[in-house]
């Protein structure tokens, strides 16, 4: 059964990554940091993938939920409600963005066509950034909040939590897409009118996907907050937290489970390399890459001929029947 091989592959890859700290010295190795960032980006990419790739709603507000998740931890810790690596706090940092996604998503997704939603989510990030800058003592204003960095003991918990988040996001996306829910999401993406005519409550599914995506993004934000200890509005509400995951999804393959994983690891490597080799001009690459990728590789790495051939035995049929970006039906 192909499903079994897929699950086997996931377990194998996870186990391999989990074994990395046994080989490399996690406190000194740059690779451990690299993988930590790559895992965070895998989770963020899956979040965007679920909303845009499977449900067809282009969200440009990932950084809003990411930053909000980080601020939940920062404010909670400052008020001594949430502790260091507090599981309850991390769940809260996912839930609050998810609630915001529902509150904002219902009006934004019910009345608006796709591009208004993109605009609205972009505006949401800006509003949150400004609100947190203006928030006074509670949010630390434009200087942000400093957390007690003496809590840092080892890189290992970060590594494993990031790995857990990446696996969690991938598995949640996989399970959602495989279930009947996934068919509803894809139906909404491919033809809204037809989906509504078949009795699918479009708004419900759009908001659900949006909220689950926000939950994942908030979790990633909380982990970064624990890692950086300095929660700065310009950094945590920076547009890069939206731009990079989109780029990773598109390059890897929108609307597939493996695509965002491949895209995230590949691009994190490129970004880290260009940071070292070309420190001055590396931000240019991210813009250039997104333009070139959309023009020349809109279906992503996972839908390249050689890739599909190579994984033929292990892959089920192409995760989406109707390729999102080629729009061949029209």
């Amino acid at each position, binding site marked *: 059964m192909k499903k079994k091989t897929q699950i086997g592959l996931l377990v194998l890859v996870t186990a391999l990554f989990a074994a990395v700290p046994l080989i490399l010295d996690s406190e000194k190795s740059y690779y451990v940091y690299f993988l930590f960032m790559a895992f965070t980006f895998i989770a963020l990419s899956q979040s965007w993938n679920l909303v845009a790739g499977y449900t067809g709603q282009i969200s440009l507000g990932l950084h809003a939920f990411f930053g909000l998740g980080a601020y939940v931890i920062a404010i909670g810790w400052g008020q001594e409600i949430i502790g260091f690596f507090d599981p309850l706090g991390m769940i809260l940092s996912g839930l609050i963005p998810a609630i915001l996604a529902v509150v904002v998503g219902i009006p934004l997704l019910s*009345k*608006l066509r796709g591009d208004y939603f993109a*605009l609205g989510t972009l*505006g949401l990030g800006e509003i949150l950034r*400004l609100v947190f800058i203006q928030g006074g003592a509670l949010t630390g204003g434009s200087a942000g909040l400093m957390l007690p960095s003496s809590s840092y003991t080892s890189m290992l918990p970060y590594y494993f939590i990031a790995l857990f988040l990446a696996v969690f996001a991938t598995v949640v996306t996989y399970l959602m897409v495989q279930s009947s829910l996934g068919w509803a999401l894809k139906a909404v993406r491919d033809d809204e009118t037809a989906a509504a005519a078949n009795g699918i409550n479009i708004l419900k599914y759009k908001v659900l996907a949006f909220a689950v995506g926000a939950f994942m993004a908030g979790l990633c934000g909380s982990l970064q907050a624990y890692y950086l200890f300095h929660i700065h509005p310009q950094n945590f509400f920076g547009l890069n937290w939206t*731009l990079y995951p989109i780029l990773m999804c598109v390059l890897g393959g929108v609307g597939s489970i493996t695509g965002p994983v491949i895209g995230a690891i590949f691009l994190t490597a490129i970004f880290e390399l260009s940071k070292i080799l070309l420190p001055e001009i590396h931000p240019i690459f991210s*813009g250039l890459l*997104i333009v070139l990728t959309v023009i020349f590789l809109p279906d992503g790495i996972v839908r390249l001929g050689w890739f599909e051939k190579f994984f033929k035995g292990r892959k089920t049929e192409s995760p989406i029947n109707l390729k999102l970006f*080629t*729009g061949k039906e029209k």
Partner: protein
Amino acid sequence: MFYLPPIDILIQILINGILFGAMYGIAAIGLSLIFGTMQIIFIAQGAMIVLAAYGTFWLFHFFSMDPYLSIIVIFPVSVIFGLGLYQVLFRRVARAGKFPSLLIAFGLMVLLENLMSVLFTPNPRSVRASYTAYGISALGLKISFTRLMAFIMAILATTGVSLFLKKTLIGKAVRAASENLESATLVGITPHRVNSVTFGIGIGLAGLAGIATATTYSFDPYFGFVFSLKAMIALALGGMGSVVGALMGGVLLGVLESYGSFFLTGGWADVISYAAFMLVLMFRPEGLFVRSSDSEKP
């Protein structure tokens, strides 16, 4: 705490807001045109405006060219740049729906911002001509000359684009295509041609807005993103697909911001304009100045 200032100050703020908002209006008209035919929000519009502002700055810096005279260089170059941009970047993906185009515009914005930051340094720049600080006093009110010029440019641009859309054949084709692309194609209008024309005019208007920006603001490479957002807000307020509506949306936003930053501190004024934006998107996405009967677009 809260007090009502004298009436002449209120009028002064109103005038400042109107003049200020006209610039958002010019940018919003460009967005509106591109939206009409391509169905995408061209997020990189602000980056284009900043690029044109840099053009004005360098022309002034190296050739001492008067910013308003530089229209004769900036505007044609911007139009050609817009035409080229469509042919090189968007033509290939235009048929595949709007999401690739949206992503390309997003990538283009990031690319331009960072490219300008590397080439021109992130230091803020501004054009300081002899008349930059000059103001006209009338009836106890003070009107900044450069802002008045920006306002006049906005009015002229709006009139020009309206006439172009109503009187010329290609303008009529643009209107037909934004109303119904399929029917327009049936009567022999080439979508690619219409798209590239709107891109040309849209970026041309960004060029004008760039000149207006360079003379009134100090700007840096990342200034454009906020400008794009403001233009989108103006567009949302005024209603997509209406040239005059876009200008009015810009003016309304300018007034809103102007009063906002007078009564509150500067940071909160932005929050208010974004909140107005979200509210309009949520509850009246067809815009404030559009009758709901002609808001339904196919």
